[in-house]
């Protein structure tokens, strides 16, 4: 399965996503499942990112006498880059492999064929709904992770500096601008799309046998993680051009 087939798969998705009937019920179901499935791991990760970032940055900033900018540094790092990318990579590991394995298993056990022969379009029902759900749930999860990371940063600073919550919140709010939040959270929509489309592509086109299912699951994570990092590079360049 090459790049051409992946593009063809994306094109087929774009052709189908705007056509009725819209599977709102299925999309909502997948959003619930994917959100709940990923919540525990992103919660822990988000909190730890904030704590570790504050702990690591404090002595470095202290060398330059700039401890006061620590809340701004933690929050901007988390909003602009760390929160979106780390959440997306965790989401890819958890969800893309799951979609790859689920659809791969359905392919191997002829469930997708059964759907097709029953005059039901499996692409619309299985692929479009999952990709749309991934695209919309990842920005929500990222916002949640960003909040937890900023909170984690605050806890680290209480322990080290005894900073008040009010001062921390004011520092964070003053530091973050509209042009930091929109590109930061906005790009996770594309990351969610990548996670969904790669997982679905690998699973939907899985080879026969259990080996095919395993391969679909593993390659989904590898490819979607790689594409997230490449896309991030491109999107950072574009957003810096729009919001310098």
């Amino acid at each position: 399965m090459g790049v051409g087939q992946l593009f063809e798969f994306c094109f087929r998705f774009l052709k189908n996503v705007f056509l009725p009937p819209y599977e709102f019920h299925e999309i909502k179901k997948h959003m619930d499942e994917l959100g709940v499935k990923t919540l525990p791991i992103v919660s822990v990760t988000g909190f730890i990112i904030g704590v570790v970032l504050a702990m690591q940055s404090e002595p470095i900033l202290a060398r330059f006498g700039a401890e006061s900018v620590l809340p701004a540094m933690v929050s901007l790092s988390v909003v602009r880059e760390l929160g979106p990318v780390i959440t997306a990579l965790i989401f890819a590991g958890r969800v893309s492999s799951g979609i790859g394995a689920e659809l791969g298993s359905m392919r191997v056990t002829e469930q997708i064929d059964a759907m097709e022969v029953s005059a039901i379009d499996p692409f619309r029902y299985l692929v479009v709904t999952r990709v749309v759900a991934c695209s919309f749930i990842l920005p929500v999860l990222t916002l949640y992770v960003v909040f937890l990371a900023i909170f984690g940063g605050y806890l680290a600073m209480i322990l080290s500096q005894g900073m008040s919550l009010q001062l921390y919140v004011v520092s964070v709010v003053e530091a973050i601008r509209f042009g930091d939040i929109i590109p930061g959270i906005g790009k996770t929509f594309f990351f969610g799309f990548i996670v969904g489309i790669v997982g679905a592509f690998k699973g939907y086109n899985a080879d026969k046998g259990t080996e095919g299912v395993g391969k679909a699951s593993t390659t989904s994570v590898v490819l979607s993680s790689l594409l997230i990092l490449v896309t991030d590079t491109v999107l950072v360049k574009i957003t810096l051009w729009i919001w310098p």
Partner: protein
Amino acid sequence: MAIEMVKISHISKAFDDFVVLDDVSLSVNHGENLVVFGKSGTGKSVLLKCMVKLLVPDAGEVFIEGKNVHTISNAELTELRKNIGFLFQSAALYDSMSVSENLAFPLIRNFFFTKQEVEAKVKRALEMVSLEHAVDKMPSELSGGMRKRIGLARSIITEPKLMLYDEPTTGLDPITTKEISRLIRDLQNELKMTSIIITHDLACAQIISDRAVVLEKGKLKYEGSLKELTASSDPFLHDFFTSDIIED
């Protein structure tokens, strides 16, 4: 004069260099039950999948009710498929759905039945396969025979005109094989469907078939009533049928 339901014309299909079907032609009349025999790997399932465009043949044509399956539009194919039931070898039940959801799925997606009508049809289909008690079970909780029955119920719930069975009794014990075969025969009699049954199970064919054909190395070699084929002195047919004849 008999009316043709299915006409397969000079179908060929190969995977890389391996020729699976080689210039196969056959036709099935309305209401007829045709059994397709053949050793494993002779292209029986591929033939069935070419008939519903799950696979595209390299050459040849398939007509169902006069429509060329491989040249009609997607919308026409969808309409055509609404009149076709397909029982997969593995039953292919949707494992994320309960038995009742499996059965209701094609009805909800393709037709405009009310909730009560769907429930009534699900109940009736389960009664037909004697599995009313399994309505809320998940596929993972079912035995092999039960899965086949539920698969059968899901295939016939839309009352298709044409039923395609891909080895409906493979992997089942002799008693369950006979039960499933009789169930298929009774359903066909009740619903007046045309059926094509892929199998290498003679016991099943003895119960169901009106006519039989035998595929050998991708070619359709023999055709006739089951009685004629089993009585043939041809060495291949003799070997094929004498290995496991079960008197009913």
